């Protein structure tokens, strides 16, 4: 009988205990010298598979096993934040897209890399300035680093330029697109020849931001809607009304297909539906940054590789970027730091990475070496490095706020309601103010002043 009693107590304790596993307090003692634990698995979280190859390189070089967890961009922030808050099952290294960067640099998630033993401040001169500055928190401490810079351009199909204008030179095309007036003229010429200048109107948003770069929210916490943004509402509407686009929204199946070749023409194009059958149109170019060239367009346009071009649109802009840092609660900071260092400050690795991807690096010792000899066969041998580095110099990191992703989305939505004719301009702007206030009660909008 006694035996049974003990057994039952034992059993229920086991059940209870196992249900509590994972709720233990986190251990996070700090030490000035970092111990690289070779037998521990280095856990890395990111939102793309970009780190897969670098991690394989790291495993070979350091003999440390790694584990990469990829969470799709849409869910990344909502998945990782609770983990970082609680420290349970947290990664040792995690990345951030620019959308979350400014939120996270001011939170205690990332280790302060300005402190001993990291002293990342000493590296400032080695990086493209805007990239290094964005990784700092509001007190100027470095929280995250990045191996890349992500300025944008206009990436176009050379054969269409030759056919329509008899010239596919990037300088010539840049002139064609140098202002919004010229851009619309070029769109008309392309339309007459049966092409569409852009896949959709939304692509213009980057030029809108670039033509008067101001943060969405100023230091007084007031919402700022620039005249340039309002002007671009009309430019977008003109693109729609004059049927200058293929109506293939970014990231839609049709958008990807339009890189490969012609896509079914917008059926509203012709009044007579019988003429539309089987008709297809081709998109001339894309408003995309460095990563868009390498990871989006290249893999989707394999059969036309070598006949693409890269040039400026009406204004310089940048889009995205990935930063990487060490989780402050990690118990494997030594290995984590080795990986972050390799990824962002290891000439040998970055050289290899450049050869592997052609991606624009932020690390100057490597970019200085390759910028004169760089050439991208996909772009008919054009030197994309020099182009992008020049664009990177024009970037003002002070326009980035922690609200950008949310407000960009709201703005995009109301602009498309205006473009679709659902709302007047005033209604759309008013709705924008209301929705921003609803999402971020702490922001002061013009409606509050009334």
């Amino acid at each position: 009988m006694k035996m049974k009693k003990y057994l039952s107590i034992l059993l229920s304790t086991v059940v209870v205990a196992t249900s509590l596993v994972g709720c233990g307090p986190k251990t996070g003692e700090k030490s000035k010298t970092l111990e690289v634990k070779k037998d521990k698995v280095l856990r890395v979280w990111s939102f793309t598979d970009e780190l897969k190859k670098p991690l394989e390189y790291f495993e070979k070089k350091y003999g440390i096993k790694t584990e990469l967890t990829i969470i799709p961009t849409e869910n990344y922030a909502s998945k990782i934040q609770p983990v970082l808050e609680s420290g349970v099952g947290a990664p040792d290294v995690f990345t951030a897209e620019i959308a979350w960067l400014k939120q996270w640099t001011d939170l205690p998630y990332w280790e302060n890399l300005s402190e001993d033993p990291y002293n990342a401040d000493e590296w400032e001169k080695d990086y493209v300035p805007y990239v290094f500055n964005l990784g700092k928190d509001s007190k100027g401490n470095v929280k995250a680093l990045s191996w890349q810079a992500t300025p944008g351009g206009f990436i176009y199909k050379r054969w269409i330029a030759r056919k329509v204008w008899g010239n596919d030179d990037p300088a010539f095309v840049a002139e064609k697109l140098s202002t919004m007036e010229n851009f619309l003229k070029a769109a008309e010429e392309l339309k007459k020849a049966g092409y569409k200048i852009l896949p959709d109107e939304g692509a213009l948003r980057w030029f809108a931001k670039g033509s008067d770069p101001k943060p969405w929210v100023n230091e007084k916490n007031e919402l700022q809607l620039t005249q340039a943004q309002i002007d671009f509402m009309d430019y977008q509407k003109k693109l729609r009304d004059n049927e200058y686009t293929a109506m293939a929204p970014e990231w839609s199946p049709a958008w990807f297909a339009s890189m490969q070749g012609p896509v079914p023409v917008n059926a509203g194009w012709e009044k007579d539906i019988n003429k539309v059958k089987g008709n297809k149109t081709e998109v001339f170019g894309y408003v995309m940054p460095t990563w868009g060239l390498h990871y989006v367009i290249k893999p989707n346009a394999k059969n036309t590789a070598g006949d693409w071009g890269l040039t400026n649109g009406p204004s310089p802009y940048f889009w995205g970027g990935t930063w990487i840092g060490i989780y402050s609660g990690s118990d494997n900071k030594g290995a984590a730091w080795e990986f972050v260092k390799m990824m962002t400050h290891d000439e040998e690795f970055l050289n290899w990475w450049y050869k592997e991807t052609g991606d624009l690096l932020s690390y100057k010792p490597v970019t200085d070496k390759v910028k004169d000899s760089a050439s991208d066969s996909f772009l008919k041998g054009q030197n994309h490095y020099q182009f992008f580095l020049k664009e990177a110099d024009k970037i003002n990191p002070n326009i980035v706020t922690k609200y950008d992703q949310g407000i960009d989305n709201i703005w995009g939505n109301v602009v498309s309601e205006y473009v679709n004719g659902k709302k007047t301009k005033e209604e759309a702007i008013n709705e924008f103010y209301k929705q921003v206030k609803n999402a971020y009660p702490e922001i002061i909008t013009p409606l509050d002043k009334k």
Partner: protein
Amino acid sequence: MNSKNKYGYLFISPFFIVFSIFGVYPILLSLYMSFTDYKGIGSPYSANWVGLQQYARLIKDAYFLQAFINTWKIWGVNIILQLALALILAVIFSDMRLKLKGVSLFRAIFYLPNLMTVSSVALLFLYILDWHHGALNGLLLRAGLISKPVNWLGQPHTAQLAVSLIQTWLWFGHTFIIIFAGIEGISKDYFEAAMIDGANRVQTFFKVTLPLLKPIMIYVVITSLIGGLQLFEIPFLISQNGLGGPEGSLVTMVLYLFNQAFKYRNFGYAAAVAYGLFLIILVFSVIVFKGMFKEEV
């Protein structure tokens, strides 16, 4: 109380301990959060106490009201279609005079959509319903039924209807199985008696099947109501950026809650929305329950 009883408590304790940690505690925590301005950073206990401010905001919130109306519209169309379809199919398959074969095969086929992950279903319909490149518009254009492609997901009413239809397609099989089981559970004597008395199919359905199915129908409506008012996945996945589609027409109450919490990080307010949603579901479940049983008394 003898010692045997004590062991009983010991054995059932694991459930209660786990349930209080993973069930009761979060429920109480979110109640607490709804009285604070918690932003999802640090501990909720260190956030500022704001009293009933979040609830005051909820009552005046035009966007929540819109979400409430959207949810009802989408659920209303869905439940009518779903019940009608499931009832018709269940009656046909259980008809004594028809004696259809292959019931279990059809039951499996009808249930199949429910087994698919919602994200694949959403992706599938995104392809089908795409404005300029979708299969549905392509088909209708080719058949000459429309002269211009319809922007199904770009207009409030068609987008809501599309979500209702997707929900119907996903769930009618489930409802069919329950109702079919309900009809099977009705004693054959009633149907035989109705047949002998010369009742036709329509009369049998309205005088025999339907009244005896009432408890099952109430079960179906209430469970569907509870699920329907929490509608989230399809609107979330089918609208761009998860923001809720054209003019906010696909913003359901839970999508609104999700965006407030995980997109805009207003956890305090989102917790208040959650409790508002709980009250709404409670009230309407009681109304439906009372309403459907009233006639019987």
